[in-house]
């Protein structure tokens, strides 16, 4: 019995069936379908069906698994081949482009210009011009005031910068009919937009934009200086820098040492001119009972804050302190 079953195990699925039942076909005809019913059908008799059935089921399962595995392997291989082909394709394209760029750069060095030997098509010329104009429109963005006509008016973009660093841009959607008015904008609420509009919008659009730009740029510059101070000198500042939304009132503290002791200076900067980025007032206070000599230092510091950009003024103070 055992020998026979081991033989069956080696033989494939179909043959095992044939050995078991040469006259009949499929599993269902050779063997009863359910184990439960078997008991009813043949009472008292002991068939080796349990073993064979289970064995055949195992074989079926194994074959199924094998088929699945083969399928998966085939798929993996197909995928791998696809990937390989794609890599080849991309490598070729990359090498082609590299050669093209090299050739272009060489031409540039030799002649200073990359001319097409053939007459360029009108399409190429127009495409070039389109790109060229787009680049010029970008430059207008760098000049501070740019805009684009819309169906109902104009959409303006006001750019701000502190020295060479460009900061936030602000937008205004302006309608021109029936009268010039602002439809929507991204100007912060603490900028006196309404006042400026009331004064200039109807009569002198250029002036309106120019004045608005002054306010926005100054605000952006003040904010930038305060942020630079916080970022670069955080370890020198005691506590946090306090500022209002318009960034025209700043309060912060730092320590000054004299005779081995440390004294806190509290600075209050007021930017009276909303279009200015330097404070009009720099008040420095110290704790009562501080040595009189500190008054001179305070005066010098106050002067620095009114003359130089905030982060630069502070830099000079820190440098002076360290050199003492």
């Amino acid at each position, binding site marked *: 019995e055992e020998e026979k079953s081991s033989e069956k195990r080696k033989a494939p699925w179909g043959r095992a069936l044939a050995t078991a039942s040469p006259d009949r076909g499929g599993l269902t005809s050779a063997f009863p379908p359910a184990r439960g019913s078997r008991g009813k059908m043949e009472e008292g008799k002991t068939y080796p069906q349990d073993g064979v059935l289970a064995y055949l089921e195992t074989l079926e399962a194994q074959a199924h698994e094998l088929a699945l595995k083969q399928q998966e392997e085939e798929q993996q291989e197909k995928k791998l081949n696809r*990937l390989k082909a794609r890599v080849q394709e991309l490598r070729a394209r990359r090498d082609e482009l590299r050669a093209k760029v090299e050739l272009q750069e060489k031409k540039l060095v030799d002649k200073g210009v990359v001319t097409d030997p053939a007459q360029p098509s009108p399409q190429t010329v127009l495409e070039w011009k389109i790109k060229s104009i*787009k680049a010029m429109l970008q430059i207008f963005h*760098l000049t501070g005031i740019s805009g684009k006509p819309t169906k109902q008016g104009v959409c303006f973009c006001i*750019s701000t910068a502190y*020295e060479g660093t460009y900061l936030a841009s602000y937008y205004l959607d302006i309608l021109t009919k029936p009268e010039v008015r602002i439809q929507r904008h991204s100007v912060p609420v603490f900028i006196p937009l309404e006042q400026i509009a009331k004064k200039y919008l109807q009569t002198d659009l250029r002036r309106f934009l120019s004045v608005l730009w002054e306010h926005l740029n100054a605000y952006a510059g003040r904010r930038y200086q305060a942020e630079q101070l916080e970022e670069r000198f955080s370890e020198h500042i005691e506590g946090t820098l306090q500022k209002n939304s318009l960034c025209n009132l700043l309060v912060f503290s730092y320590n000054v040492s004299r005779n081995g002791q440390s004294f806190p200076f509290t600075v209050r900067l007021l930017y009276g001119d909303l279009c200015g980025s330097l404070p009009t007032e720099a008040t420095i206070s110290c704790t009562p009972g501080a040595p009189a000599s500190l008054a001179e230092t305070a005066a010098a510091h106050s002067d620095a804050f009114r003359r130089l950009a905030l982060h630069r003024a502070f830099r000079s103070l820190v440098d002076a302190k360290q050199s003492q």
Partner: protein
Amino acid sequence: MDNSVHQVYEDEIQLLEEEIKLLAEKCEDIHQESTFFSDEEIQMAKKLFQRELQGEYKGHGSPSDLKSQLESLEGDLSFLMKLTGIQFTRHSKKTLEKCKHFYACCTEILSGNCQSLPFQLEFQLLEMQNKENASAAVTDLSIIMESGQHSELSKFVSSTEEHRNLLLFFRSLSSYAEWYEHRRCTFLHFK
């Protein structure tokens, strides 16, 4: 095991795709920046394009889009020049370095006039882009203005040059030019 082999190929594919994109852009940039077509050539191209459009045009994309796109952009540019009084007569740009949309550095030469004041600039611009926002900074600036009638400008020009304040240069030049123009008109009026 199979997956890791696939991963190696997939990683290479991604790298190659990025490299190809950068190279294609570089090709495009070099071509754009070293080519020049005069206004006459542009006009000619427009006419030829119109002819092709009316004839049998079998190409990719709608041909009429190019011409109308160009005219729309030309309109935008002319609007801006009229509004600001700033006209650019020459602009050339050279991309120095570009990296994966992270940053781009270029040199630009610009000449033009603001109302009646001619100027010439050369600057280096660094543009950076991360997930949240884009930023730009002028890393070098040199300004040439005719000394002569407008000597009061020279101090201001050297100061803005030193601080690389391109924006302030344009805004102040614009204000000055307008004031100057206004003064000139007033004087003429009284002559």
